[in-house]
Structure formats: structure tokens, C-alpha cells
């Protein structure tokens, strides 16, 4: 029953997680104030013989205070969020030199395309692998996300990545993995009967292992 986010493995994950914890603390404090306040009022102001309620219509001062404090709080959260949003999803957020991959979502699998030896995605020497994304660690990568049929959503929980795949659009999704290992990909938008089976894996390699994998796979992959 944890409120702690699972371990992360990407560069911007820490920014997102930080925002989450800030909001968790703020909403947690508000939660305690209101719920404890309600309990106190329930006990303190319950009807007892001989008591009368106080005929109070309101208080302008109170209204100003409890309008201003929430307003300032949410604006601050908004401003903090704006910076992170721009870094992750902004128009110019994809770092220069990010390695491109094609991610084509369809019912019910992910077709991942890798650029071939010519270093260009979208040329004849590209190769495609089903449901397996292999990337190097500590290197920005960008998925050119497309969809074949209906809306899907690329969700990589450990990287704090999520982006809907929209038929008719190509959407850039960038991230940079910080740890070697295997992480899961899920589809996060209802896409039909097989929505639950659209799991895939992202394997993060060291730079050398990645080159080795590329070489092996380029030779033996489905074209």
C-alpha cells in the first residue's frame, strides 16, 4: 500500500518524481487539515442539551484567506510543472544527437524499427523487431511513435514515459536511460480485445554490448 513510486531509470524521472512528492506533501497536509478538522468539529459541536448554535453568516476575512492560499499553492505547483513539462514534451525538447527508433503500435504488438548501418532511420537497411526495444545506457534516444489502426499508448513505467500513439501522426518521444537492465513496456490506452497482451520489453545495454547486439541483430533480423 505504498505511496512511494517504483524505482526509476531515466534522467527526467527524478524531476517528475520530485513534482509528485511535492504534490503528495501539499495534498497530504491539506488532507490532514480537513479530515482532522472535520473530526474535531464532529466531536466538539455535536448537539447537546442546552446548547445553541451560533448564528454566524460568514466571514469575508476567512473567505479571502481560504481563497488566496489554495490559489497561490496551485499556481506555484503549476509553474513548477511547466518547466518539467517543457523539458520532457516541449517542441524543442528532443536532445540533439538522440538516436532515433521507429515504434509502430498496432493491434496487438509493438513493431520496433532500428536504423541500419547507414545510420538513417527510414531507409532500406533498417530492420524491425517485435516487442523488443534495445537501447544504450546514458544516451538520449527518441522514438518516432506511430499507430497502424487505433490509438495505443507507449508506457514505460520505469522511465516515466507515456505517450499516446495516434493513427495518422508521428510523435516524438525522447528519454535517456540511466541504468542497465530490462524494463517493461505496456500499452496504456484501450485498443481492443488484446489490449492486455501488448506487453513488450526494453533492454538497456552498455555502449559496447549495444553495438554487439546491433551487429548480431542486423544480420539476422526480419527486414
Amino acid at each position, binding site marked *: 500500500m505504498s505511496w512511494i513510486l517504483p524505482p526509476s531509470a531515466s534522467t527526467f524521472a527524478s524531476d517528475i518524481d520530485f513534482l509528485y512528492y511535492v504534490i503528495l506533501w501539499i495534498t497530504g497536509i491539506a488532507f490532514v487539515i480537513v479530515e482532522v478538522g472535520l473530526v474535531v468539529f464532529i466531536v466538539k459541536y455535536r*448537539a447537546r442539551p442546552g446548547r445553541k448554535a451560533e448564528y454566524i453568516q460568514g466571514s469575508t476575512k476567512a473567505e479571502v484567506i481560504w481563497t488566496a492560499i489554495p490559489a497561490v499553492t496551485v499556481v506555484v505547483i503549476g509553474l513548477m510543472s511547466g518547466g518539467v513539462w517543457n523539458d520532457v514534451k516541449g517542441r524543442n525538447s528532443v536532445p540533439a544527437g538522440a538516436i532515433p527508433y521507429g515504434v509502430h503500435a498496432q493491434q496487438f504488438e509493438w513493431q520496433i524499427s532500428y536504423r541500419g548501418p547507414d545510420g538513417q532511420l527510414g531507409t532500406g537497411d533498417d530492420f524491425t523487431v517485435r516487442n523488443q526495444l534495445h537501447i544504450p545506457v546514458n544516451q538520449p534516444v527518441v522514438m518516432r511513435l506511430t499507430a497502424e489502426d487505433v490509438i495505443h499508448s507507449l508506457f514505460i513505467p520505469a522511465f516515466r514515459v507515456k505517450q499516446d500513439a495516434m493513427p495518422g501522426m508521428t510523435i516524438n518521444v525522447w528519454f535517456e536511460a540511466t541504468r542497465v537492465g530490462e524494463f517493461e513496456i505496456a500499452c496504456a490506452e484501450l485498443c481492443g480485445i488484446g489490449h492486455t497482451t501488448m506487453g513488450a520489453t526494453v533492454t538497456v545495454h552498455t555502449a559496447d554490448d549495444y553495438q554487439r547486439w546491433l551487429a548480431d541483430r542486423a544480420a539476422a533480423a526480419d527486414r
Partner: protein
Amino acid sequence: MATTALPLEKTTHATHEMSFVRKYIFSTDHKIIGIQFLLMSFVFLLFGGLMAMMMRWQLGFPDQPLPAGQLLPETMAPGGFLLPEFYNSLVTMHGTIMVFFAIMPLLVGVFGNFLIPLKIGAPDMAFPRLNMASFWIALTAGILIMAGFFVEGGAAGAGWTSYAPLSASPEWTGVVGGQQLWLVSLAVVGLASILGATNYITTVVNMRAPGMTWFRLPLSIWALFVTAILVLLAIPILSGAAIMLFFDQTIGTHFFDPTDGGQPLMWQHLFWYFGHPEVYILILPAMGFVSDIIANASRKPVFGYHSMVYALISIAFLGWIVWGHHMFMSGMNPTLGMAFMMSTMIIAVPSAIKVFNWMGTMWRGNIMFHVPMLHSVAFVSMFVIGGLSGVFMASPPVDIYFHDTYFIVAHLHYVLFGGSLFAIFGAVTFWYPKMFGKLMNPLLGKIHFWLTFVFYNLTFFPMHNLGVGGHMRRIYDPSQYEFLQPLAPLNTFITVSALLLFAAQIPFAVNFIMSWFNGEEAGENPWNDNGLEWIVPSPAPHGNFAELPIVYRGPYEFSSPLVEEDFLPQTRKLDSDTEPAAASAAE
């Protein structure tokens, strides 16, 4: 039932005796229509709840066949094991039925109808026959949508949000007739809602009794009035969108099909442009009822009545400019995301104001914890949770993680069930005597409340944690994912709690039915409340008021220094009161 009173103005049904059918089946009396909506909605609440139980069984006990599951056909659950396509239909229909055929009619169709004329001092709605039509059209829509389960391909299965292209073609869902019936049903119930809204707005504007000025209206009526305006303006957007999707499905149009120029994203914009005002339609009336009930129970005026009205109005206005927060991950321009984030953050403020004002109403009160008050306090405590969880999703970067997870499911159920449904239970209990002339049994009421409150929180609070763990929504089989496997015990716990929550509604059903026949007779004003409905007999008679009511003050004059009693009805004339001008206006 009580005697028929003489109506004030010319209505189509004066003092003649009517047949049973004209009086109770094809009735134009707003109170009977309200009760018809009540019975219809409870049936759909039951259907929606059963669907949720089936979904929870799949998530909690995927290896066990559904109890009595063998009764379901092979196309849904062979051997009692749900098929993925049937699970998707359940997800879709649970949401659709709860929103359009349970909560909306309960809040607006029941209480809009029952309360508005009574609480403003009118003999009936402005258009009684149109009102009757609204009910029968809504019921027809309900039958149409359930018919989806009985056609080939099953019921709609693209989610209650019906995103295109998934929903636009049977090629993607396997569902044919079911998806079309879904759209037709929504267009039909939409018409019923629009006609109802027209009626409510006209009635509140034009038929208030003398002295019932705008700022003497109870907050329940303010909320219903503002909600009716939202219904009037938002539902037609859904109707338009539904028609376009229906044409995509049937006559080959391409509104949402990306080949040759259609735009799937346009469905989302249209749907949520309706959808966000819709969620305020689903909460504002509940807020209104809770305000009335908390003031009554606390024996104190509502704290900050004017602020409460302005908060209602600003929520309604702001509700039109936040729709994109449902679409942060959709691929729309990220700059739009920033704009919607700011408007969404701001809309949290009027809701916060209301929470503090409810607490202010209880502060220094002399609180009676009758059953409606229990539900109302629970409303405040759980609406707060729902509202606070919304702040996470309002931040687009944090929404990256939480979008389409159980964190959202927790949020929406805290506002819709923890909020609206608890308010509905409170409101039904509070106004039951005026509807049926009997009081609901308080002991059964308390048992129902506590069981529901406990099991409700045990069911839905852990869903926040599922979301924190990354658990996606609308997932038939989470065990496919290694990262979700550790959450399986939590899913089972939630399922058990949900089953107990469902069972906990039995005392309410028993109470509702039994009290109708054997309940304690209610007097005119069992809650010592100030509203106009409490000056007429219980149950309220046809035509409502024997004489034109004259209003001298606002609805929340509890513990007033002017009188000995701790309540002062709106229509009670004190020596210091003057007649309102409208009372003696020329014909």
C-alpha cells in the same frame, strides 16, 4: 396519498379525479416524475453495480469462475470465465450506465424534478407534459443501451469515452450493433436531458413565489439551476459528436478516420468539450444538497452563502476551459497542455472554497447527526480526497505517469461515489418523507451508512496505490506484466471489499422498500427545516401549495435571534416583515 389541493394557477389538471394510469404512470406531476426517475435510476445503479462486481471478480479471482457465471452465454463467459471482449464491454457499460442512467438522472432527474417547484413555491414545472416526455424518452434510451448486450457482437466495448478510431469500426472491436445502439441511446437520453434542462431553467427563472429573490434560493436550487444550464449547453456537443461517430460507423463518413483527412483527435476534443462540463453536472447538485443538509443538521446558516453561489457559478464557467486536461498524453500540442494545466489548477480553488465553507457551517453549530448528515459529512471528507488526487493529474508531467492508471480510477470514484452517490443517499433519506409520507428507518440508515463508508474506502483508497505502482486501467489480465504481479494481492483485497460494498447496499434497499409500506408516518416538517417544501403535507399533494406561499427571508435562518425556535421557515411572517412587491402585483 394526501388529498388533492386546489392549484393556484391554471394548470391542465385541476381538481378532477384521474385514473391510476394518468396519476402514476403517465403523470405530468413533477413529484411523480421525480419518483419515476428514482425507481429507474436505482434499477440502473443495480445493473452498473453488478457489472462492476463482474469486473472486480476478473481482477481479484481470475482463476475462479464467476459465481453463477455458467448462466452467462458462451459469447460472454464460457464456463463462467469472462472473455476479454466481454470484460471490455463491462468496463464500457459500467461507466456509461453509471454516468448517464444512474448518477445523472438521480441528481438532476429526481431532485431537479422533485425539489425545484416545491422549493421555489410553484405548483409544478413550467412545462409539465414536456417533463413527462423527458422521463419516457430517458427510459427508452435505457432500454436501448441495455439491448446492446443482446445483439450479435455484444455491447459497446470501446470505453465510456468511446475513442475513435477504436469505436468507429467493428474491425477494431468486433462490436457492431452494440456500438451503434450505444450512440443512439446517448443521443436519445441527451434529448431527454435537454428538454428537462429547458424546463428547469424556465421554471426557476419565471416561477419563483413572491419574495423568493435569487439570493433567497436554497443552494440546492442554485446548484440544480446552474447544472441545468451546463446540461443545456454541453449535452448537444455530445449529440453532435455521437452523430458524427454514428455516421462513421454506418454510412462511411470519415470524421475520425485518418485516411483521407479525418482526425481521431477531433473526437477527443469534442467528447471532452462535453465531458468536462459533464463531470460538473455530476457533482454540483450533490454539493447543493449537502449545503442544505449540513445547515439543517448544524442548526446554523450556511457559512458564506454568497461565496457558495459564486463558487458554483465560477466552477460552471471554468469547467468549459479545462477539457484538455483529459488529453495531456494525446499528442496534442504541448503548449495547449500548459494552458489547460493553468485553468485546471485554478478550478481547484472554488471547490476548495466550498469545502471550507461547509466546515465553517459546522463550526460552532449544534449538530444533529441524522442519517442525511452522516452522508453529507462523508461527502465532504471524500470529495476532498477526490479533489486532492486531481491535483496530481492536473500537473502534466506527473500525469505522464498517472494517466490511464488506477490513480485516475480512484480519483473519479472518490468524486462520483464518495461524493455524488453519498450525497444522493443523504438526499434520498432527507426528502423521502416529502416523497412518500414516511420516514426511512434511522437504524437501518446508520447501518447502511457505516458499512458503505467503510467498505467504500477499503475498495477505492487502495486504487491510489495501484496507480502509484503503475497499474493501467481497462486491463483484463494484469498478470501479463511482471511489474503488476506484486499488486495482485491488493487487487484481490479490493475485490473482496467491493463485494462487501455491494452487499452493504442491501440494508438501503430494504429500508427504502419497507419504509414505503411500514415506515413511521412523517409530519409536515420532520427535520425542522426552513424550506418551502416543509410547509405542505407529507407526501406533498398534487398542486403543492393550497395558497400562494409568500417568502420573507433566506433558507438558512437557523438559530436566529429573532425567534425562540432554532429554525425560522422562509414563509413564516414575523411582525417585522414586509410583504414583497410581487405578492400584490396586478394580474
